[in-house]
């Protein structure tokens, strides 16, 4: 006879008993509800476990392995043809060279900007109000770079001529936000110089 306060089996107990990891307690024999639930669970488990996955064609497995192999080979050389159209293997040379080139360009620009703004900085350090320093003309700057015919500069220039920011990001030469960081750490005079350089560059672009 069932007690009025009989505690039914929990979900976990029912599952454990259905899976065979827990012995059936005497309650199952006494409680029709739990017994019925247990029977249903077992029946569904049997019905589900009897269903096999259809075996694919015997040819499938070799084809599958070949597909995976091809995908892995592609994975192993993801960017072999993306660097300046260089052939397989030469990216090992191109990437460090381009990194060196990018670093050199940055150093050149910063050094140039500092040289141009040195007097203004000293004035600022003296806390004297100064009118906006006249921006150096680009014509003063660019000829020194382009006319120098420095072989390392020409090498850098050639390498970076077609490089866009996406390519540089992809190659890990710069990280997201590095340009913002660099600009936010320029002095006022360096910023003015940079602005002047950009304006001149834009003007030159429109003229050509």
């Amino acid at each position: 006879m069932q007690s009025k306060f009989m505690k039914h089996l929990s979900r976990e107990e029912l599952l454990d008993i259905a899976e065979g990891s827990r012995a059936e307690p005497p309650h199952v024999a006494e409680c029709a509800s739990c017994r019925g639930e247990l029977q249903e669970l077992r029946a569904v488990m049997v019905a589900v476990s009897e269903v096999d996955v259809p075996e694919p064609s015997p040819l499938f497995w070799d084809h599958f392995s070949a597909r995976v192999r091809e995908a892995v080979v592609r994975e192993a050389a993801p960017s072999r043809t993306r660097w300046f159209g260089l052939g397989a293997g030469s990216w090992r040379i191109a990437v460090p060279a381009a990194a060196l080139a990018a670093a050199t360009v940055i150093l050149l620009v910063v050094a140039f900007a500092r040289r141009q703004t040195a007097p203004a900085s000293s004035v600022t350090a003296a806390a004297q109000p100064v009118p906006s320093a006249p921006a150096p003309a680009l014509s003063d700057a660019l000829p020194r770079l382009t006319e120098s015919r420095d072989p390392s500069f020409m090498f850098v220039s050639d390498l970076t001529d077609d490089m866009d920011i996406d390519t540089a990001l992809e190659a890990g030469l710069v990280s997201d936000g590095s340009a913002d960081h660099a600009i936010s750490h320029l002095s006022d005079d360096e910023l003015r110089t940079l602005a002047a350089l950009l304006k001149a560059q834009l003007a030159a672009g429109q003229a050509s």
Partner: protein
Amino acid sequence: MPRTGERDWKLTVVRQSGDPPVEPSMAELGDAELVSACLDGRSAAFDQIVERHRRTVYQLCYRFVGNHEDASDLSQEVFLRAYRGLPKFRGQSTLGTWLHRISVNVCLNRMSAKTPPSEPIEEHRHVDLKTESPAERLLRSERAVRVRKAVARLPRKQRAALILRVYHDLSHQEIADIVGTSVGAVKANVFHALQNLRKLIGDDAV
């Protein structure tokens, strides 16, 4: 005792001291050794991993998606992710368990990207497909189709827990590790999956 007119042949293999040591074939290596060989750049080792585990991975993916084309694509994705992740494989679990985990993640991601079931399980009404045909094979086949469809309609976590428990015979703890949940949650998911399947399949199929 040697018989008259016959000779006893004894074959002796003599290796020169300069010969390279004979390496065991990939098929003889254990999973851990294959992983190590992969990381040393021996591509044949990864081929062997694929060959060894492709059927299990495919079957797991098939259980999730219920068709060959998607299962094949997903299996390829699993091995590609495994290849990418090999350097991070620490061997804390077996390679098989690790591949199970990747498979489940790949399948669950695919299920998230694809259209979810359009109607909740509770609203699904059992359609009686009882056939008049006496062929037991046909009945079994139809039942299998219905069960596969029902499994494919289960919510993601229930489906993952059920498939790994019933078809891949993993322990609740192993499933919890793979799915990233507790043993109790795994048991609850298996229990609800079985209850939902009973509604979906219908009594006559069970």
